[in-house]
């Protein structure tokens, strides 16, 4: 039972590296960039590049047995947002021919650190070869990741990076700060540069929340827009809405609302309608159906979306390759696609507005995640 250890991976990797056909290497096309003062959407993400990478990895894996690949994708909460990620992960496994019993998806029902931690320990007990994780708390994952990496497991950071850990080398996802920054830009455009803003968020401790808020404020720096209220709704849509109504009732100067968690968008939209304050602009994150329809009807000005589908899909490819081809060989294939920081493999960030609503929904249905 020691064969799963680091040494055997290395030997197989050494053998495999040589066998990767040069034709398998691919190179990226330039990323689209979305900046400017007017509110404009962007729904192209990084799809083209990730597809190219997937093809390269598939090409390199051809002819190898994937029977000893046992991977898992562990996200931070069971929410709508991750359904696309799950779909992508399972599609990735299927495409590679990894059996579903070797392909575990886990979303903590309550989104707590302890749930996630216990699941990780459970997975180790099951002998997985690698996992991708959207860490609820990157700092707390540090020790465990160090142990796992030392034991030869491959750990892929998705959704939010794991700086300072042994899994810092590769991150698949959107930097949360960047997503928050995009939201801030959208808010700036929606408010024409002035007004108070309130932020609603489901957690004051989760890294993705704090980083997004930081990015959001960064984008507003130097404008007349101030974040005057931040409210924690404790992961509950109902609380979010009640809080939003309260904010609107008590803060006449608040002209903009930013909702960080996926359910915050619909809650804010409804609160604004209830309070009959349709002049209040809403920017939010994620692509809940209700959020999208509010975007379509114009109640929500913009929503910042990621592409968790690829965090699942490409994640499965990377984890399989890491096990079968070894770290060095796999990283060789990925290298060209990384951002300038040398570790981030962007899954892209999109901004959906009323204008590009239909473009986004058609992309969703194309991936089977609508």
């Amino acid at each position, binding site marked *: 039972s020691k064969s799963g250890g680091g040494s055997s991976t290395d030997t197989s990797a050494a053998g495999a590296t040589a066998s990767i056909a040069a034709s398998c290497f691919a190179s990226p096309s330039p990323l689209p960039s979305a900046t400017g003062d007017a509110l404009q959407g962007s729904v192209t993400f990084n799809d083209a590049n990730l597809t190219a990478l997937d093809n390269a990895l598939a090409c390199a894996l051809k002819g190898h047995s994937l029977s000893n690949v046992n991977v898992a994708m562990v996200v931070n909460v*069971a*929410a*709508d947002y*991750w*359904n696309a990620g799950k779909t992508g992960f399972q599609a990735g496994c299927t495409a590679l021919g990894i059996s579903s019993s070797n392909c575990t998806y886990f*979303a903590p*029902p*309550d989104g707590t650190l302890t749930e996630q931690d216990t699941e990780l320990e459970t997975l180790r007990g099951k002998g997985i070869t690698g996992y991708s994780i959207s860490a609820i708390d990157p700092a707390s994952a540090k020790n465990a990741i160090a142990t796992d990496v030392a034991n030869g497991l491959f750990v892929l950071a998705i959704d939010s990076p794991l700086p300072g850990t042994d899994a810092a080398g590769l991150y698949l996802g959107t930097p949360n700060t960047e997503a928050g920054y995009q939201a801030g830009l959208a808010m700036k455009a929606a408010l024409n540069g002035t007004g108070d803003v309130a932020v609603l968020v489901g957690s*004051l401790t989760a890294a993705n929340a704090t980083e997004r808020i930081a990015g959001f404020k960064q984008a507003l720096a130097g404008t007349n827009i101030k974040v*005057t*209220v*931040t*409210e*924690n709704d*404790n*992961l*509950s*849509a*109902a*609380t979010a*809405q*009640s*809080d939003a*109504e*309260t*904010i*609107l*009732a*008590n*803060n*006449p100067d608040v002209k903009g609302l930013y909702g960080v968690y996926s*359910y915050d968008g*619909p*809650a804010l*939209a*409804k609160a604004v*309608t*209830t*309070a009959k304050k349709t002049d209040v602009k809403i920017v939010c994150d994620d692509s*809940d*159906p*209700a959020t999208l*329809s509010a975007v379509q009807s114009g109640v929500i000005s913009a929503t910042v979306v990621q592409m968790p589908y690829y965090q699942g899909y490409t994640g499965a490819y990377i984890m399989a390759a890491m096990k079968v081809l070894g770290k060095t060989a796999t990283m060789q294939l990925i290298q060209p696609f990384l951002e300038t920081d040398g570790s981030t493999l962007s899954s892209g960030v999109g901004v959906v507005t009323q204008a590009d609503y239909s473009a986004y929904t058609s992309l969703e249905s194309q991936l089977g995640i609508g």
Partner: protein
Amino acid sequence: MSASTLSPAPAPTGAAAASRGPSLLRRLAATPEAGVILACVVAFIVFAVAAPTYSSTPNMQVMGRDLAQFGILAIGESFVILTGGIDLSVGGLAGLSGILVGWFSVTHGIPAPLAILLTLLICAGIGYWHGSMVNRLNVPPFVITLVTFTICKGLALSITGGTPITNLSNIFGDLSLYYVGPVPIPAIIFVGVAVAAWFALERTYIGRQIYAVGGNLEAARLAGIPVARRRTTAYVTSSVLSGVVGMLIIGRLGVADPSIAGTGYELTAIAAAVVGGVSLFGGEGRIVGIAAGAILLELISQGLLSLNVNTYYLTVAQGVVLGVAILADRLRAKFFGTGRS
């Protein structure tokens, strides 16, 4: 041998002293609910002075809608607590009922009124199940309702797959969004439920028997009260009211979101009841206190939001204010009233 030798004790502590001729004020101060009501008044005044928007109509409307949610849950919960039980399922069931009604009406195309009926029937069935388990198998209410809570939370998630159900019928939104004068409809529903519950508990035989069951199960049984039926009634009431609250919530939210099931309403509901003078041992507590308890909790949490207390300190402040309110009440009880023991 005159029966008059059975004169009541010379100075039967509170009651006799009270009839001796104390001021109305003193007598008011001695009733168990006085403290909570007073705390409500004080809290309201303090917050209204500190935050100018607090007493504004829109803010009061928000509080009214909030109250409708956990106030009604607290009332339902109290029925169960009065029988000496506890119902941890109210929050989960409220969440599930919102999901169910959305699922029936949106996903399965059942007309909304029918979907509402169906969902309330399911809720009643769950309450009935709780009652039977407690009556027949003597399962501790804490456990059986915790099981239900867990299952409800899980079902809400698994039915929706985490994705909220949208495109709800207008019925729900209408209920939550319209006003009678300046009063939001949910607040009126809350008042209606409170009055009905008060009436049921204080003025009907069934209500009095519920108190008897919680006060002394054995005595109630020996007096021929259908103990099992009364307990079941309480659980069914609690569950059905949870169902109603679930619908109010999705109406207000506009979508049926599975996260509602896990919001922790049950704790708030029990807290409101206990703050309002309900004893967790059963048989004790009145609707006026329960309503006041719910109102106090709402006044406090809303007041701190109105003051824009820094989020990081909000929870601390909530705890502290609640603590102060409770201690003030207990000091009152110690020095004035008999209060609840």
